[in-house]
């Protein structure tokens, strides 16, 4: 088949092009948040004193961190899904959440005597964190990968990992409402580990299903 013959066939295929990518992403994130909320409220639910905890800095900061991560990962995921997109702004946005986390750890180290550091870091809930963040984020990851697949990511593995970070940010935001461990020392160790599980899973699935 000559190229001009192929062009005739492509032009005759006038079925409406797929859903614009921006809208597909918004739909996928909305669905992912709903699913994560559903799984969270069925499996865990917020902790009993969540209302009062809202007046403590440490509790609120957990959401600042997870939401900052989710927003940055969303922007990067959208940028990665578009061929030829400029990644620089989105990539530098990814620095915000780690920076916030490092800053809060410094404050905590100043505020808390060193004899208590280990206890705060180990916390009481690390196994629950490592189990339930991936559980809450698993189905959202699949939903978000569908949006990524609708796009055209040039690097399948990296795109999958970014999708995993987004699912992790969403899942950790819900999980934070349940977890009794509020110290930044706990958050800085266990949250990134739990989110990394979803990012690795995303990278693996991305390798398999994001090629085009």
């Amino acid at each position, binding site marked *: *088949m000559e*190229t*001009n*013959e*192929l*062009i*005739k*066939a*492509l*032009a*005759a*295929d*006038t*079925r409406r*092009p*797929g*859903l*614009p*990518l*921006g809208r597909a992403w918004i739909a996928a994130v909305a669905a992912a948040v709903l699913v994560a909320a559903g799984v969270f409220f069925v499996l865990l639910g917020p902790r009993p004193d969540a209302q009062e905890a809202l007046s403590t800095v440490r509790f609120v900061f957990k959401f600042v961190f997870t939401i900052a991560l989710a927003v940055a990962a969303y922007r990067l995921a959208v940028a990665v*899904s*578009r*061929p*030829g*997109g400029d990644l620089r702004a989105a990539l530098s946005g990814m620095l915000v959440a780690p920076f916030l986390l490092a800053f809060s750890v410094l404050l905590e180290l100043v505020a808390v005597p060193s004899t208590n550091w280990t206890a705060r870091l180990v916390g009481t809930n690390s196994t629950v964190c490592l189990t339930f963040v991936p559980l809450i984020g698993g189905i959202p990851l699949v939903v978000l990968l569908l949006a990524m697949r*609708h*796009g*055209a990511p*040039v690097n399948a593995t990296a795109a999958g990992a970014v999708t995993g970070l987004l699912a992790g940010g969403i899942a950790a935001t819900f999980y934070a409402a349940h977890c009794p461990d509020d110290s930044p020392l706990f958050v800085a160790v266990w949250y990134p580990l739990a989110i990394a599980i979803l990012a690795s899973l995303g990278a693996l699935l991305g390798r398999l299903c994001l090629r*085009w």
Partner: protein
Amino acid sequence: MEKGEERILEQMLIAAIEGDERAYVAFLDAVAKLLRTWLRRKVRHGTLDVEDVVQETLLAIHLKRHTWRSGEPVRPWIFAIANHKLIDAIRRHGRLPLADSPALEEIEAMQVEVPQGWEIDRALEVLTPGQRSVVTAVSIEGSSIQETARDLGMKETAVRVALHRGLAAIAKRFGRT
């Protein structure tokens, strides 16, 4: 010059997305020319046919045209897709033995990978008979959807579905058959 060319490409693509078939043919023709020039500069080794990569890129542009956001420059989007497809093609061809490899006589004796026609024709062979006759009628014979429907005794919507699925299947199998 480049600015003007960019504007024209963008206008053609917008018209095409709104369903203007003639504008779409003009757009794809212009893109094919751009790609040929760009690829000839990039591809130096002989086993890789530039036209194969042009065709694979056109298919990808068609199937992924919803990833272009109106208002964004068209050329970087096109070349990002083309680059992705070129790397793919080079990777596939990398599996072929190189001319200076030590076991050259052996390989010649095995008659490995004598290219027969273009990759797209090999991809065509994997289509269902219905899809293949629709794609061939519209592309090689140059029939319209209506003529194809009449000649093959199919409904127009069925022809459109077969064409779309056929093109998607070709894109999926391209270079992997």
